[in-house]
């Protein structure tokens, strides 16, 4: 009943080899610090970016420059993390975030 599939003109298959990259942000907690890692989806580490650390009310607690290997460490005792933390990484042309909840921090101290 359904006629043969024909895609509308709006659907463009991305050309193979297209330079496609997005900013990927990941943060892990080990009870003492949040380690932030940022890389592009093509695997390249972010070498220049601001890392903003925000609290549960979206107040900026601190801003740090990212290291040339695409990582930065935020000691937990340097910020009020009682309501969790939002980590924003901004390269100037791409930005992304990671959310750390109070439970994430609690679990990291139990493991």
């Amino acid at each position, binding site marked *: *009943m*359904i*006629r*043969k*599939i*024909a*895609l*509308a*003109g*709006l*659907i*463009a*298959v*991305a050309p193979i080899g*297209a*330079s*496609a*990259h*997005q900013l*990927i*942000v990941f943060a892990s907690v080990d009870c003492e610090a949040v380690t932030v890692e940022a890389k592009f989806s093509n695997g390249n580490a972010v070498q220049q970016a601001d890392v903003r650390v925000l609290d*549960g009310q979206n107040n900026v607690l601190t801003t740090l420059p990212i290291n040339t290997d695409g990582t930065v460490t935020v000691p937990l005792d340097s910020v009020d993390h009682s*309501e*969790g*933390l*939002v980590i924003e990484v901004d390269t*100037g*042309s*791409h930005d*992304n*975030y*990671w*959310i*750390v*909840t*109070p*439970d*994430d921090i609690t679990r990291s101290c139990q493991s």
Partner: protein
Amino acid sequence: MTILRTFRTLFAAGLILFVAGVAMAQDRPRVVAVNYPLQYFAERLLGDAAEVVFPVPADVDPSFWRPSISDVSMIQSADLILLNGAGFAAWVDRVSLPRSKLVNTSDAIEEQFIVTESMTHSHGDGGEHSHEALASYTWLDPTLATSQADAIAAAIVSRGLASQDQVDARLEILREDFQALDTQAATALGALEGTDIIATHPRYQYLARRYDLTIASLEWEAGAMPTDAEIADLQALVDETGARILLWEADPPDAAFEITAALGLKNVVFAPLAHGVEGHSYFESFTDALSEMAEAGVP
């Protein structure tokens, strides 16, 4: 005296029922869905066995919602988290979610995903490039939605949120509804063969593929008055395609309809249903939109 005693008894009974109701609501397992269709399918399959939460505010596009920390805490504590997959709800890749509670409802249909090319821009020494993306409104193809409902049913049973017999019975009815919707859509949209359509936003890829529609897309904001530049783009697209139907995600101001009608377009509001339509179920909204499209296709 007797009246007073009766009143006290009734009041006490009412209080007990209220407290019991609150306790039951709190005790029910919680399921979180990343869009309205998944919430609706889960509610159909669960009945009253669990509370199904779709946490995105009505005025926020669920694809781009950024949850608060407290939202994420609530979601982390859910008994089941229903993901759409196909790149829908970018926030799920920006938080830690318990794997044991996650279900990607489109795992079984990944080979049917539609790859699109999103924004093109340039910066630094990278030159101009595009970000590859997937069309994510899978539920606008009832056959794909059926598969997603199957995945939800399996997850509900495997986690013991409802009995196999109950879920099987509800799934059978839900699958019949999908089948009826698919048949109705094929009939209603069959009349649009050879009719070029323009959508104000690229939401309808899976609908277009399923029913052999030709839909070109703009990038207009849902429900907003188009700018003069956007109207000029529309005019150019109408000239290029000869389109006669314009799909809107949501009602724009009346003046917008008047402008586009003057371009020879029939306006159809087809809610893409990432959010539900107040007072209408997934099936009701979908069939309403199909009727409007069929009517617009009549010369």
